[in-house]
């Protein structure tokens, strides 16, 4: 029995090098409330550099609220209160002096694509411009690189000056990914990105994410457990405001789970 545990621990390291990587994001005792009611409570987890960290769970589990606190998007909602500690690169995001700088380091992809009312080019060039890059030649390079990485360049290279909102849903979602990449983020957060995207595009984006992992840390919130299985190195299971389990993704499906509810959920027995 003891031997087996040691073996498991050793296996972890082999299966998942991310375990050895430094901590990108440390969350301890995180509780989020809307008014009086807690949307998420007592969350403890760590996200490591260059891993894809999945978060699965049914609706109302607190997944989106969790993401919002990481880049301080909670400031939009005066009703929302956050307790606990979130360390990003070792700094507590709750009392940063400049949350705009924090946000500029974290890319966000929303469930429904949000093409800003700008041209395709301007959508991607906005963030670099905000950083102070003005030269057209430099911006051109960034725009092409980000659109290529988001697997959109070939489809839009001839109409960069048309409105982003004229693209199809799947293209718009890739545009928002390109826009997030233009931030050159340390951390990319995707919130159920495939909700409005067709399966083919979803697979293309998933391939993109596997590539991006080498350059950044990715948090992938998804309600498709198989998507988490395909992509995530480790996965957390959220249920009704509670972080039920955090573990190596494959373990949630086939290995040992600490909580039976996790296995039930990934096997589709509820939720």
């Amino acid at each position, binding site marked *: 029995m003891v031997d087996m545990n040691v073996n498991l621990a050793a296996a972890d390291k082999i299966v998942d090098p991310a375990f050895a990587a430094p901590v990108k994001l440390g969350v301890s005792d995180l509780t989020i409330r809307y008014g009086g009611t807690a949307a998420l409570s007592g969350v403890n987890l760590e996200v490591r550099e260059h891993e894809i960290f999945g978060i699965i769970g049914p609706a109302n589990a607190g997944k989106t609220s969790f993401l919002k606190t990481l*880049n301080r*998007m909670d400031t*939009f909602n*005066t009703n929302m209160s956050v307790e606990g500690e979130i360390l990003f690169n070792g700094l507590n995001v709750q009392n940063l002096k400049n949350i*705009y*700088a*924090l*946000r*500029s*380091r*974290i*890319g*966000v992809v*929303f469930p*429904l694509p*949000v093409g*800003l*009312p*700008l041209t395709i080019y301007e959508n991607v060039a*906005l*963030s670099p*411009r*905000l950083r102070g890059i003005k030269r057209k030649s430099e911006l051109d390079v960034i725009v092409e690189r980000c659109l290529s990485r988001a697997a959109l360049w070939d489809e839009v290279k001839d109409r960069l000056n048309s409105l982003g909102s004229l693209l199809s849903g799947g293209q718009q979602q890739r545009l*928002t990914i390109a*826009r997030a990449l233009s*931030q050159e983020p340390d951390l990319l957060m995707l919130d159920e990105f495939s909700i409005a995207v067709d399966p083919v595009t979803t697979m293309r984006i998933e391939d993109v994410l596997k590539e991006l992992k080498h350059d950044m840390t990715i948090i992938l919130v998804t309600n498709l457990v198989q998507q988490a299985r395909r992509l995530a190195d480790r996965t957390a299971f959220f249920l009704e405001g509670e972080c039920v389990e955090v573990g190596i993704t494959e373990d949630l499906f086939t290995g040992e789970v600490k909580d039976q509810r996790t296995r039930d959920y990934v096997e589709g027995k509820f939720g």
Partner: protein
Amino acid sequence: MSVINPLNRSMTTDFDSRNMDWYIDKFVQFIVFVAGISAIIFIIGIFIFITMEGFGFLLEDFSFREFFFSPFWEPSDEDAPEYGILALVAGTASVTGLAMIVAIPFSLGAAIFIGEFASGKMREYLKVLVELLAAIPSVVWGFIGLSIMNPLIIDLFDVPVGLNVLNAGIILGLMAAPIMTSIAEDALKAVPDRYREAAEALGATRWQVIFKTVLPAAKNGLLGAVLLGVGRGFGETMAVLMATGHAVNIPGSLFDPVRALTATIAAELGETAVGSPHYQALFTIGIFLFIITFIINLTADLIVRGIRKG
């Protein structure tokens, strides 16, 4: 039988007779229809009325060149009355132009503050106050122009008279600002929050979000707000009558008194003989004003509609 028809009513005759409810329904429909198209009836009626009153002048004494290009408005000259509205147009345009210079920064700033920064109670109070401000009668503004601005301008700029373009422009600007604020704020509110969130998620500061995302997205509505302000400026009568100095004059500086098209009608109509050329000339000014404000409002409306669709 009683099981099938428990209320014991006739199975077919109801369909073939009209009861009281039917007549009430038709009557209410008619009333609402009349109320609904009354705006169209009134606007056509007013247009026909002012056109008929001004028609004689248009046929006989009217000279296109004199009317639009002569700076002399001397209708009471016994020998050779002149009906040139160039100076009046210049008066109205200069006052409206200055009013917009005053009102645009004010109203845009107020709309941005109310729509983007103020929250909760503060926002509600401000909106109510702005609407209250818009409801102040124009004669009160004119009074402020006469009794407060006039001595203030004389003191500050050391000029003999304080009733001039500057005075009326500021007064008119302050008058137009509340309604422009209201419409501009509506335009900002029509910009979906997801744009703001997406832009802030990129790390944009509040100002960057507003300048790079919200204002471009709302630009049609904001333009509509400005045009409605211009329309208001053109049509305003009482305040400009009291604050401009009411002297026929093409202004060379901010401190020159002028006279507005509307004020001319208001001041002179009561003193002319009905049907005289002077009377008809005033109505011709009315036609001109009607067409201008109609075009401005229509343009503003089309622009505002444009954003709602796009």
